């Protein structure tokens, strides 16, 4: 199958999944809302209703893309490390500490914050990898547990050192202007973070498809026994994939606190977005170059649902249903219904079946 056809097929499947999910959302809105048409309109057209909402959509998408990228990197190595959330909190906390320190008065705090956040995230990513390589600890369990530790530790640091007395221990003072990512479009959240996200996508693509490390990683993910048989040190690959993924998670933390959206650190600033990176990675089939598009599409639905939650009588949780249906349809490798039936009445057999002799 050619690449072009593959992309076409996948795109068609995703769009169809999204259409089914939207239809379900529509049904729910009709049941739940007193003014269904207005509600649905808010859901579908809301994100484009103002410069500010468009900005929120783009910013959310950049964050979703980074989260998806972090997951896709470990998923390609067939490691199910789920530690992105913890990495975001660790990275965000370090970046906030730098922004609130005297360094925050200089632009240096932006690259320094990003770098320190990546290091913190990488360290958190490294732990479950190392534990798996040396102790055979299950990476799902250890990475999830680390999420709790990182979250609570971040809260502790916030309350002890970073919080301002004015905010009642739940947020810091606003960072100095020099420590906040410059906005590219005034009065929106479209800032340096978008560039960082796209740059990360390009770097991860390059690492995966143009370096020997990336090929080793993908071969390990395809068939770990084959990798071992070929002489690939799969433990090194596994640990380094988790570490690199952790660095992306950490960077996402810096993006949060130093971005236009916050410009300060707040309790629970990540708001559960990290885990939605799993959906992005699954729908994009772990392909880095597909991730920005999937993130934009999903970010749009997410933004629409959020606006619906603020502006209408239907809660934003509808997005959870949409998310579930999309995952179910994409992950289950469905084919368009009716194809087998169509083939039967046309006299052939299912075209989906590969010819074998």
């Amino acid at each position, binding site marked *: 199958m050619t690449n072009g056809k593959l992309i076409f097929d996948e795109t068609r499947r995703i769009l169809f999944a999204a259409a089914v999910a939207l239809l379900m959302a529509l049904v729910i809105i009709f049941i739940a809302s007193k003014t269904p048409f207005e509600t649905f309109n808010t859901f579908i057209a809301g994100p484009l209703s103002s410069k500010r909402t468009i900005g929120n959509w783009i910013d959310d998408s950049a964050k979703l893309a980074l989260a998806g990228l972090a997951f896709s990197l470990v998923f390609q190595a067939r490691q199910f490390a789920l530690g992105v959330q913890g990495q975001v909190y660790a990275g965000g906390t370090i970046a906030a500490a730098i922004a609130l320190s005297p360094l925050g008065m200089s632009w240096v705090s932006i690259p320094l914050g990003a770098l320190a956040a990546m290091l913190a995230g990488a360290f958190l990513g490294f732990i479950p990898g190392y534990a798996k390589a040396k102790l055979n600890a299950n990476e799902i369990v250890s990475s999830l547990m680390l999420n709790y530790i990182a979250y609570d530790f971040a809260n502790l640091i916030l309350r002890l050192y970073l919080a301002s007395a004015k905010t009642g221990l739940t947020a810091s003072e606003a960072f100095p202007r020099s420590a906040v990512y410059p906005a590219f479009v005034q009065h929106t959240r479209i800032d340096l973070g978008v560039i960082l996200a796209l740059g990360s996508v390009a770097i991860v693509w390059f690492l995966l498809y*143009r*370096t*020997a*490390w*990336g*090929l*080793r990683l*993908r*071969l390990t993910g*395809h*068939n770990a*026994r*084959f*990798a*071992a*048989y*070929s*002489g*690939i*040190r799969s433990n090194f690959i596994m640990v380094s994939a988790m570490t690199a993924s952790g660095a992306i998670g950490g960077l996402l933390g810096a993006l949060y606190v130093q971005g236009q959206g916050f410009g300060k650190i707040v309790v629970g600033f990540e708001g559960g977005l990290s885990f939605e990176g799993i959906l992005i990675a699954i729908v994009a089939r772990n392909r880095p170059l597909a991730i920005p598009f999937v993130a934009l599409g999903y970010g749009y639905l997410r933004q629409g649902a959020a606006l619906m939650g603020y502006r209408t009588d239907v809660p934003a949780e509808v997005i959870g249903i949409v998310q579930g249906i999309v995952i179910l349809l994409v992950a289950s490798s469905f084919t368009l219904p009716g194809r087998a039936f169509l*083939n039967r009445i046309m*006299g*052939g*057999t299912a*075209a989906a079946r*590969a*010819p*074998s*002799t």
Partner: protein
Amino acid sequence: MTPFLQAIGIDKTYPGGVHANKSVDLTVSHSEVHAIVGENGAGKSTLMKILFGVEQPNAGEIRLDGTPIHLPSPRAAIAAGIGMVFQHFSLVPSFTVAENVVLGVEPRSGLRLDRKRAAETVQALADRFRLPVDVEAPVERLPVGQQQRVEILKALYRDAKLLILDEPTAVLAPQEVVELFAAIRSLTEQGRTILFIAHKLPEVIEISDTISVMRAGHMVGRVPKAEATEAGLARMMVGRDVALKVTRAKPGERKHLCRISGLTIKNDRGLDAISGMDIVLRAGEIVGIAAVEGNGQSELFDAIGGLRPVEKGSVELGGVDITAVPVDQRRDAGMAHIPEDRIATGSAGGATVAENFVATELEDERFVRHGLLDLGAIRAHAVKLIDHFSVRVNGPDAAIGTLSGGNMQKVVVARELSSNPKLLLVSHPTRGVDLGATEFIWQRLAVARDAGSAILLTSADLSELLSLSDRMIVLYRGRIVAAFADTTELTPETLGSYMLGFAEQPENERRAALA
């Protein structure tokens, strides 16, 4: 007398454009064993799928006992008395044999499955057709040969008059093949008809009454058993003379390349799979290992290949001790490995052919510089190997998982031979591979041997071992029980008695052949 089954003018083109059957005729008589042979891709499986209602022909007619029948689905085929055993079994592992056999048409008492009656019926069926199997055992605990019997019983329980067996011997050990053939004979004696798809010609000639040969979608011949010869059938299948003969290594002094001393290896259950093995391998020879499946040969190859730890003893290759070093260092020392399972071990199914070729060469300056892939060189390397080994593939960017078994095996063989190894481990090199590719792979192994490789070979196919090996050893329960410095006079019968543990060579004779 009307033939039992007649297929007339069967034509099948797949939606992808593959013309798999071109006006194929097939006539099968009552109570005979009818074999269909042909290379991979000749259209045998398609024809069988049509007869079992899995695929629909574009043209043609199927007659059973002279009556035209229509088979829109496997269900219709079963109702017409046609059963099929596929290569990949469809059994529920945690269910017992009896439960698996009756699944779908269970005897009931009220709403519940009548276990007792199910077990009795299945037992009676097994006794009648000489298919001994423990009907109360869960299927997952049975060896492959017995699982196959369960599949056959499933078809018989549904009262199949015609039983289609798709390459039934591919998964079986030699002993199991003997048992299967006994069962097949008892089936035909009791009026059942067997349609048998196969690769291995000696087996086909042994069991069949009539042999139909397919090539490139055509039915090219129908040969009664009396007139069938291996060479003749091979010529019909491939369309040219096939020389399944390999020249032996030229005699002469050969230097020692690999020394295995006191090697002990544990199996997955912690028991000794190989105990205290000593052997020296020399440059330019093939050493064959004959053993019944499960006598330590898999563990031996895994351990030398670096996929399993060595318990005691040492392996030395060209002066380097490789007993406990990682796989990449073994490969640097000159080891290469054609593993027994090309899918589970020998390839990364989702990756491209080019990536599979280069997987073992990622330290090589030709393909990787400063950690960056040289995609052009990798592609050129793949194109070259595809060409040299006549791999049938759309191009180096095709996923290897889309290749047929024989072509996938060629990719593995090409990759492993391309490094000009000193020591080549070869496990079942032609399992499930068609005749043309088998001939090709054998010749390539002989070329590698003549270029100075020491080759350690094992195969479930004794004729393959006897054709290729310059020296042979027999493993029984992890120990070398016999060794032969000269294989020209060796017969399968002699090997068999050692393989089954009936005999053991005197110590001094063995020693002489191992040095």
